């Protein structure tokens, strides 16, 4: 079963992902931290699927798909930004300043 | 730990030892075979100095690689530089663990110590047998196994999906090797390989969907059983096989898709900076991948260990008869599997020494604009055809279904090859010079 430990692990991994987002300035690493968080969520889905039925596992499929789409588009954006600024450092990406 | 579980673990370890030994030794011998085949094709003799007909050449090469000096590039990322060969090597070998190399063997043993004792006694090794039996008991305690032993090290329920998943990891080794070497050539090789393998992985995965559709399962044992009951899938899914095999070339970085290595452009691509045993680990990985691709092709499309015309299922009698599973049959089936796999390995080598290398943009265009759409279209056609045959025509027999699909495949293959070829290869490479026409202009247009 391992439901409780799996959820705990998921919580820890998610927190680590969040911490990573706060800690890094590299846009690509930031993306990876987001992937880590998504993985953590997937883990809780799979863990709960044991109790609640296959819906959880199906949801993981969808999360994976969305993650793949997000990675593709996100990385393409980063490539485009890199062409502009020759950097993927978030501190150099602030044209959205209000 | 129950005796049954212990027996399972023990037998699995045995299988592992056998399979990995055979694969590693086989891979070593494949280097020799490659050189022999190339020599044969170029009308040479090939290696013939070490051992009889050069049979010990691989051993000599291995020895040389082990004792050679390990070189490190000056500003390489050391950790990743060391990690890369292992990351190429491990997934490649991991794959051989899930392929069914032989027919499943029914075993019913209550005590392995006793069984070994009995076996050795029959060979007149009475004291040795008793000693081994005693040792066995001392180490393992009671060990037993009742049931059918799979021909694979691990017969996973996820089957060839595991192959797809793990083979996609091979790219890490190559990409890391390219990046960590801190060399332009290596980096280019690494970049090329990661793009190429990710691209062709898609086509490969999609090309295997028709197999899944037809067998209704992904596990190797079930797919082989279906092929025994019906026909080998090469007949109903011929185009699928073609697509898979072409993608396989790209996945293993073999010619005509060996852009990541590309001696003449990138020196040796990602492993330019590698020497000695680390270099040979990349080599082993590559040959091991060739073995895997060939074995998977024979398992999915040529019935795996299935001996032609002989059936193990009384419900579907073979042309030459029906046999019971047993040690003899298992050995026979292993031989058959070996022959099939070797045939494909030979084809791989044959093609290497026949076709020239693609240009990189051609390679990507082929992957995304030809292979993938073709595979997707094929999935749609086959699924529609299966639905029509099963629900529209109401045909239940697997054999009849297969032959109808075979007919469909013939038509499709004619169209596809006609389209791909455009009068270049199938109709003969010299056909363009023989085009009847008013002059060179018309001929040029035809070539374009």
């Amino acid at each position: 079963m391992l439901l409780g430990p799996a959820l705990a692990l998921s919580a820890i991994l998610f927190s680590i992902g969040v911490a990573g987002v706060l800690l890094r300035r590299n846009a690509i690493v930031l993306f990876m931290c987001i992937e880590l968080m998504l993985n953590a969520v997937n883990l809780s889905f799979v863990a709960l699927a044991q109790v609640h039925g296959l819906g959880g596992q199906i949801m993981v499929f969808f999360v994976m798909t969305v993650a793949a789409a997000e990675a593709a588009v996100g990385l393409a954006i980063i490539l485009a930004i890199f062409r502009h600024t020759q950097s993927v450092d978030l501190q150099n990406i602030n044209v959205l300043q209000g | 730990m129950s005796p049954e579980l212990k027996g399972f673990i023990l037998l699995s370890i045995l299988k592992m030892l056998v399979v990995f030994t055979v694969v590693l030794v086989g891979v070593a011998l494949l280097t020799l075979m490659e050189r022999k085949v190339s020599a044969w094709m170029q009308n040479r003799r090939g290696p013939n100095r070490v051992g009889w007909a050069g049979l010990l050449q691989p051993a000599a090469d291995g020895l040389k690689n082990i004792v050679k000096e390990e070189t490190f590039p000056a500003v390489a990322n050391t950790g990743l530089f060391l990690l890369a060969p292992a990351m190429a090597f491990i997934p490649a070998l991991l794959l051989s663990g899930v392929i069914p190399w032989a027919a499943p063997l029914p075993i019913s043993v209550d005590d392995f110590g006793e069984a070994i004792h009995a076996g050795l006694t029959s060979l007149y090794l009475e004291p040795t047998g008793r000693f081994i039996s005693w040792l066995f008991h001392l180490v393992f305690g009671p060990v037993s196994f009742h049931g059918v032993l799979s021909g694979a090290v691990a017969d996973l329920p996820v089957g060839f999906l595991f192959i797809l998943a793990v083979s996609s990891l091979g790219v890490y080794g190559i990409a890391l090797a390219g990046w960590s070497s801190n060399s332009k050539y290596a980096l280019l090789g690494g970049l090329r390989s990661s793009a190429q393998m990710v691209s062709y992985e898609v086509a490969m995965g999609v090309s295997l969907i028709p197999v899944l559709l037809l067998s209704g399962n992904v596990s190797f044992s079930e797919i082989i059983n279906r092929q025994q009951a019906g026909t080998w899938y090469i007949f109903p899914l011929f185009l699928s096989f073609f697509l898979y095999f072409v993608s396989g070339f790209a996945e293993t970085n073999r010619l005509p898709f060996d852009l990541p290595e590309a001696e003449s452009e990138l020196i040796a691509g990602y492993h330019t900076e590698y020497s000695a045993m680390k270099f040979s680990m990349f080599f082993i990985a590559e040959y091991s991948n060739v073995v895997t691709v060939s074995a998977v092709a024979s398992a999915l499309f040529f019935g795996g260990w299935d001996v032609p015309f002989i059936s193990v299922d009384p419900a579907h009698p073979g042309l030459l008869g029906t046999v019971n599973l047993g040690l003899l049959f298992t050995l026979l089936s292993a031989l058959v599997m070996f022959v099939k796999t070797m045939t494909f390995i030979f084809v791989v080598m044959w093609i290497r020494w026949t076709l020239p290398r693609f240009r990189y943009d051609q390679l990507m265009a082929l992957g995304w604009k030809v292979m993938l759409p073709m595979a997707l279209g094929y999935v749609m056609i086959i699924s529609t055809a299966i639905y029509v045959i099963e629900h529209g025509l109401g045909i239940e027999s697997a054999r009849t279904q297969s032959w109808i699909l075979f007919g469909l495949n013939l038509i499709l293959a004619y169209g596809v090859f006609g389209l791909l070829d455009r009068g270049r290869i199938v109709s003969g490479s010299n056909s363009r010079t023989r085009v009847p026409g008013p002059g060179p202009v018309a001929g040029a247009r035809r070539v374009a």
Partner: protein
Amino acid sequence: MTAAVFYLLGASAIASALLCITRKNPVSSALWLVSTMFALAGIYVLLHAQFIAVFQVLVYAGAVMVLFLFVIMLLNLGREASDVRGKPAWALAAAVMVILGAQFFAVWHYTPAQMASEQHSGAAVADPLAFFPNNALAAEAARPDDAFGALSASLFQNYLVPFEITSVLLLVAAIGAVVLAKRRI
């Protein structure tokens, strides 16, 4: 034994994740993330989700992370100064981790038994598995030989529309990525 393997994999996942966010080299970070994903794939197998495990390896490790690695290599990152922020950021990250972790641990108390009894208006439920309506499917999923069938049936019947929408999303993402990467913006 399952529990032991789980804790081993879990520890490896946490360690890899921590290394992932602290390594200054993006390539190392990516590889540690791959390691985390492998550990998670192992955990999925333990949680009776073999297919999710395979797809985890196939999609995340085999495709998404390769893409990350590819981009990192293409931009030739990681050869310059570290991108890890300074001390205040560390403190902040640690604080957020602790707070969020604490909050999630509060959620962790929602065991199946507690959830079942809450849904059942307070009465204690002996076997939570018997209570949940989709229990039959869960049992189906636990049987390794037919897991694929049950999963696909669910995916292509109950979740057909989301599935199709996801495919459209993928198509849009593919086109978007091509357009973004191709043009000079």
